[in-house]
């Protein structure tokens, strides 16, 4: 087995992207997103890339993106979850009923400050329990996930219907609604603070990983490359905050707010929405899921099991229990998405989350998660969700009819997967 020499002579000059050690797949996805955004910006005479639309785009993406991060783990372990939309509906129904009915009256008065939090806790528990139950059916009873969750798709949609007697439940608690998007934002100052902290954390992470490499005598990239990467990250984070902070609260909304407090809107006073709490929640989910995927044993076992289930089993990994955990995480994330989705609507409706299973799977797959298992990234799934949402809202803004929108989205899914296959064939991974 003559070791192939790493061909240092054949490639004497590393190109820019190689020196920066940036993931080319990530670059490709960002490129695709930028193209989509620019095309729609032209088609809408500049209305697509306004702070207001970008703000709306991000809050519309959150619910699907949160679930897509969980779907990555499911698909990486060679399973599928068709029930996420229905599970979201059941969790949403539970939370809506808890805060407007079940807990109210005997126990707590309506509007009690603990209500939304108890409702959220209850919904999360239900999500985890149902997810773990799916995982048990798949892992221990070895029923294919496709069947279990196809059943779940029908069951949980209608359990939600029974819980609410088919009624729309609302309005939801005001604190609860703050998780929905526009009704809960950090405001200008706090958005800058959060952005600053995030930048510092990212730079610290870069610095630490460089130090670890040096301490083990592994090769590191040149300092200038490190600086460029740091600048891109810092610029990206702060630029995003800047855009969100540029979306000013309309004057009449401010006027109403001041009136409610018995004050008069001062002349020339402006305020911006800033970072929505729901987006902050998505960022937190993304960070935690990425850490789980890359830095924990659980994540390592998820990827190992996806790559070779037999090898994982022979290495002493309890792959059945792992399946339960992966589906439980999915259930938790469905419940979290249910908070965001119902809060955004400000009520629970029967059709909440309908067809979300397809959006979520599409987001994960567009984001480079391989259905054959073992391959996938959290950031990819989130970018996938963002691209899908951009297409959908962009077409709506241009005035494309709904049936055409679905035709385009369906076609894009297939093409994206084909491009991914070509990419993998060329890079050989």
């Amino acid at each position, binding site marked *: *087995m*003559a*070791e192939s020499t*790493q061909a240092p002579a054949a490639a004497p000059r590393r190109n820019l992207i190689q020196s920066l050690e940036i993931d080319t797949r990530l670059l490709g996805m960002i490129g695709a997103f930028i193209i989509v955004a620019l095309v729609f910006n032209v088609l809408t005479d500049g209305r697509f890339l306004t702070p207001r639309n970008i703000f709306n785009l991000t809050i519309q993406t959150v619910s699907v993106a949160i679930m897509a991060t969980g779907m990555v783990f499911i698909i990486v372990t060679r399973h599928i979850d068709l029930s996420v939309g229905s599970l979201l509906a059941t969790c949403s129904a539970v939370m809506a009923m808890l805060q407007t009915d079940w807990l109210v009256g005997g126990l707590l008065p309506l509007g009690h400050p603990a209500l939304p939090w108890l409702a959220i806790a209850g919904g999360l528990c239900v999500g985890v329990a149902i997810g773990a139950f799916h995982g048990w059916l798949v892992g221990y009873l070895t029923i294919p996930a496709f069947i279990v969750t196809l059943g779940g798709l029908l069951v949980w949609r209608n359990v939600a219907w029974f819980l609410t007697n088919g009624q729309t439940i609302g309005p939801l608690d005001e604190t609860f609604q703050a998780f929905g998007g526009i009704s809960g934002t950090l405001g200008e100052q706090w958005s800058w603070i959060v952005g600053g902290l995030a930048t510092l954390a990212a730079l610290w992470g870069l610095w630490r990983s460089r130090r*670890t*490499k040096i*301490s*083990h005598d*592994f090769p590191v990239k040149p300092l200038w490359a490190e600086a460029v990467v740091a600048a891109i990250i810092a610029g990206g984070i702060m630029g995003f905050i800047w855009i969100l902070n540029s979306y000013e609260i309309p004057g009449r909304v401010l006027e109403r707010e001041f009136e409610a407090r018995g004050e008069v809107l001062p002349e020339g006073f402006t305020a911006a929405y800033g970072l929505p709490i729901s987006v902050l929640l998505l960022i937190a989910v993304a960070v935690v899921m990425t*850490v789980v995927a890359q*830095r*924990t*044993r659980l994540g*390592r*076992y998820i*990827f*190992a*099991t*996806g*790559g*070779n289930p*037999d*090898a*994982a*089993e*022979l*290495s*002493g*990994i*309890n792959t059945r229990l792992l399946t339960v955990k992966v589906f439980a995480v999915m259930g938790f994330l469905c419940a979290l998405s249910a908070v965001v989705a119902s809060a955004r609507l400000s009520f629970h409706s029967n059709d909440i989350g309908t067809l979300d299973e397809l959006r979520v799977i599409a987001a994960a797959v567009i984001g480079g998660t391989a259905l054959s298992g*073992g*391959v996938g990234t959290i950031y990819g799934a989130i970018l996938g969700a963002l691209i899908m949402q951009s297409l959908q809202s962009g077409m709506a803004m241009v005035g494309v009819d709904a049936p055409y929108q679905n035709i385009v989205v369906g076609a894009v899914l297939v093409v994206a997967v084909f491009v991914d296959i070509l990419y993998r064939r060329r890079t*050989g*991974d």
Partner: protein
Amino acid sequence: MADARGTPLVELNNISIAFGGIQAVDDVSVDLYPGEVVGLLGHNGAGKSTLIKCLSGAYRMDKGEIRIKGQPVTINNPRDARSHHIETIYQTLALADNLDAAANLFLGRELVNALGMVDDAAMEAETRRIMGRLNPNFKKFNAPVSALSGGQRQSVAIARAVYFNAQILIMDEPTAALGPQETQMVAELIDELKRQNLGIFLIDHDIHQVKQLCDRAAVMKNGQLVGVVNVDEVSEDDLLGMIILGKTPEHLAA
């Protein structure tokens, strides 16, 4: 000779296992002493891999008993086997193709830092260290195992088996994909591990190599044990005869 060495490290007593209608292993008994290499020989499908998988925890035997250092033990899964310091190089290598060498080497036993996070850098450093000893030509530390050659993959599997201070080592055709130089290194490794008093089950189709590396050879045919012989007392032709005819020449029974 066996009696002089006290308690065997491993005793496989009357092991049987069937898959559906096929009796893959039928009432087989073999033992293994510390510092000894026992070769397992037999035609394709004789049941060699199945037998050792009962010891490594991959399969649960239908009947029989396993003793380690004289104590009966239950091995229900690979974790049980690892806890008895049994390490295995599987014929299929059992590597997760999408992970790199270090992740495979430490799979199920990751090194973690103070926060409980997997410490990839430390694992890579350890992997570089042991590979430097086993296969100095190995350089692809950051590529997924799927990008390695058959022999390189085998080196990773061997490294994994010897890294964790095994007392009992099972090697199922460990040199099948290796070049002559690497095969020689594995032979030296086996000698070194013998000196460290490990017990090794070695499955190999190369009779010449078995004669060189093993102390005793157990021959199987159609799931049954043909016989166990001291390799010094038999010729290569005798072993070949046992494998093909399924009979131990009478003057040789050990």
